[in-house]
């Protein structure tokens, strides 16, 4: 790892360590955002990591963003770092005319503008990733109608909305105050909230169209891929902290006169959890490198991004659930703190598609890779 990355990681780690109560306070305050924490995150420059230098950003890649997210995950920070700093930023970067959106990108990077991407429909079944909002032409004007769900952060000032238009999709910029836009709040397991967006006959100014057709599809795919990998890194951070707490507990908790970590049944269970964390960490690191490789095809980037999310979601779920079991009753007590990590991973694992959904996407994307590999066994 080069020095810049080590410095970035160490700064993020120190930032998180200095705020040990942030996750609990965020949850207990029952607010959609923590403006003070968000300002501090922006001051660190982390929201500018993916923003090009021309728009006042750092113009770095997925790998550094993933390092920051991993540290935030280690503190179970509920702030919408990925939703805003990665997903929304990356979607705007795919605009057909990037110059038109530079001011907004700069405002996002400085933490002054909270933007969210609304791209999922309201289904929870297999068709969840189709746009739930349709656009049609009425008297020369574009009119939007439909629903989008699981929109993060719910407190966004503006939304980048994926709209079905004819055979393809378009991306539109809608301000929160747009007439015809209604937002319902849904509470997530970690104390954050998602917006359920209902769009009722919204007439949209053509200047608010970010991209359409193939360009919109590619912009959205790239945004989702980056958000998947960086979210997976956040999950890696959360699972690693749950594992650290568990190992420390196994070393110190005594029953029958000895440390329970001396029991082989528990040792082997702990080793299996540790292996899953190492695999997830390696998978996310490798996926980030593929996303940062300009020579890699979009299909390959999508496949490894889905693979990373499937791995991280599955490993985080396993590790955090088993962490509770290995602790015994104290793990189930809110005051102990393991629950913050379990709840954060429950929310992140489901967000942007869970492990099973991403195994399906991975399978579809890699189908053609195997045509020539059959052997006479």
């Amino acid at each position, binding site marked *: 790892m080069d020095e810049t990355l080590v410095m970035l990681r160490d700064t993020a780690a120190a930032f998180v360590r200095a705020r040990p109560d942030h996750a609990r306070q965020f949850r207990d305050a029952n607010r959609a955002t923590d403006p003070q924490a968000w300002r501090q995150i922006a001051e660190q420059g982390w929201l500018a990591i993916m923003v090009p230098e021309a728009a006042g950003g750092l113009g770095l890649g997925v790998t550094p963003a993933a390092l920051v997210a991993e540290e935030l995950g280690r503190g179970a920070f509920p702030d919408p770092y990925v939703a805003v700093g990665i997903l929304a930023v990356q979607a705007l970067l795919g605009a057909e005319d990037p110059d038109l959106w530079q001011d907004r990108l700069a405002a996002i990077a400085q933490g002054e503008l909270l933007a969210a991407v609304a791209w999922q429909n309201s289904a929870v079944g297999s068709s969840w990733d189709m746009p739930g909002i349709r656009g049609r032409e009425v008297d020369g004007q574009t009119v939007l109608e439909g629903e989008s769900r699981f929109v993060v952060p719910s407190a966004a000032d503006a939304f980048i909305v994926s709209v079905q238009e004819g055979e393809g999709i378009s991306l539109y910029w809608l301000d929160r105050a747009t007439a015809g836009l209604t937002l319902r709040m849904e509470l997530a397991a970690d104390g954050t909230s998602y917006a359920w967006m209902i769009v009722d006959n919204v007439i949209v100014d053509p200047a608010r169209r970010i991209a359409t057709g193939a360009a919109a599809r590619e912009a959205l795919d790239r945004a989702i891929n980056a958000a998947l990998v960086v979210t997976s890194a956040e999950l890696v951070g959360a699972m690693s902290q749950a594992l650290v707490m568990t*190992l420390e507990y*196994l*070393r110190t908790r005594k029953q029958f006169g*000895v*440390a329970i*970590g*001396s*029991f*082989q049944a*528990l*040792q*082997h269970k*702990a*080793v*299996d959890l*540790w*292996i899953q964390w*190492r*695999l*997830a960490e*390696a*998978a996310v*690191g*490798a996926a980030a490198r593929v996303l940062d490789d300009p020579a890699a095809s979009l299909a390959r980037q999508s496949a*490894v991004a889905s*693979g990373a999310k*499937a*791995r991280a979601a599955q490993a985080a779920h396993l590790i955090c659930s088993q962490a509770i079991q290995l602790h015994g009753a104290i793990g189930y007590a809110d005051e102990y703190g393991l629950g913050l990590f379990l709840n954060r991973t429950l929310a992140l694992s489901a967000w942007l598609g869970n492990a*099973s959904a991403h*195994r*399906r996407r*991975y*399978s579809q994307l*890699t189908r053609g890779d*195997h045509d020539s*590999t*059959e*052997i*006479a*066994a």
Partner: protein
Amino acid sequence: MTVQFGVPQERDWNALDDDAFRAIVRAEFEENYPQSLRFPPRRLFWRENGGWFRRMAAKGWIAPNWPTQYGGMGLSPAKLLIFLEEQERWGIARFQDHGIVMVGPVLMRYGTEEQRERFLPRILACEDRWCQGYSEPNSGSDLASLRTEARLDGDEFVINGQKIWTTLSFDVTHIFVLVRTDADAPKQKGISFLLVDLASPGIRIRPIKDIAGHEELSEVFFDDVRTPAANLVGPLNGGWSVAKSLLGFERIMLGSPKMPEYGLQVLRSVAAAAGTLDDPLFVDKMAALDLDVAHLSDIYHHFAGQVARGEELGPDVSLLKIFSTELFQRIADLIIETAGPAGGLGGDVTIDRRFINILAPFFKARPASIYGGSNEIQRNILAKQVLELPTS
């Protein structure tokens, strides 16, 4: 007179860039390795694959891991990984190559120049082929409790006892053994490393048929077997350290993703024949295994990178062996499940006009989690050395 070790190398392989080297190795294998010997369902005997390895010997490629000074290819760790990866990719079955993999490196590190001159040229020529005598009936995971004893008598050791699970002992010429040379010392401190000619009087070999029906394993009995004192490698009673030093590079190879990748290929063929490639239940299971292999490969390359940079591997590398072998077993299980009624058929099976050995991966996968330190032992090591959990 100076001894000639093997044949000279055509060129300095390490001066090539990785891709160029890989291309040369790949071309050599693809053009010359007999198609009928690729991915064999069992270990091959010398009469079957000896021709290929004699060719490798004549070319100077028999010992990729040895320095050129001793007749090897002199490959850097990075180039050696490429060589081994290409061998595995093309399904080139190893012969009983403990002479190359273990005896050579041990003699270079612990042997005398006399021992190197006596043994290395014959290993390079494939005239001597070696097997390993470690396990005993009562010393498996607890290897250091071994009881086969060697007593010094003049300028010879006299060996009595029994080794077991010795691979292909009846197909090779020599065996290296761990023997007890001091019964009173603490168990690791009374062990020595000896080289023995299998043609010595007093050696008896009994093949052991395995549950797949193959005879690759054996028992080797020693009844007053005499071996020269000059065949002691390393110090007397210092054999445990000699044996442990062999665990370095092999530990990463035991966890390579190649066996699970081979399993996936068989699984795809069986699924295609069984018509389940589009079944949603199968698709999810297959994708999960595909990702397990892809991510194993990611972490394997993390460790391979350490090796390539010349860094010492830590005890955490044990995770590769555990995950890789158990993944191979899960793939083998899904192959059987997918084959349905054909999952009970042994040997090459005809399904949908393809010949597939459905049970071969299953049987190959069984011993993988046992040999080289069982997976349970690997978990103990990780728990103590990496996770720093307390001992009871």
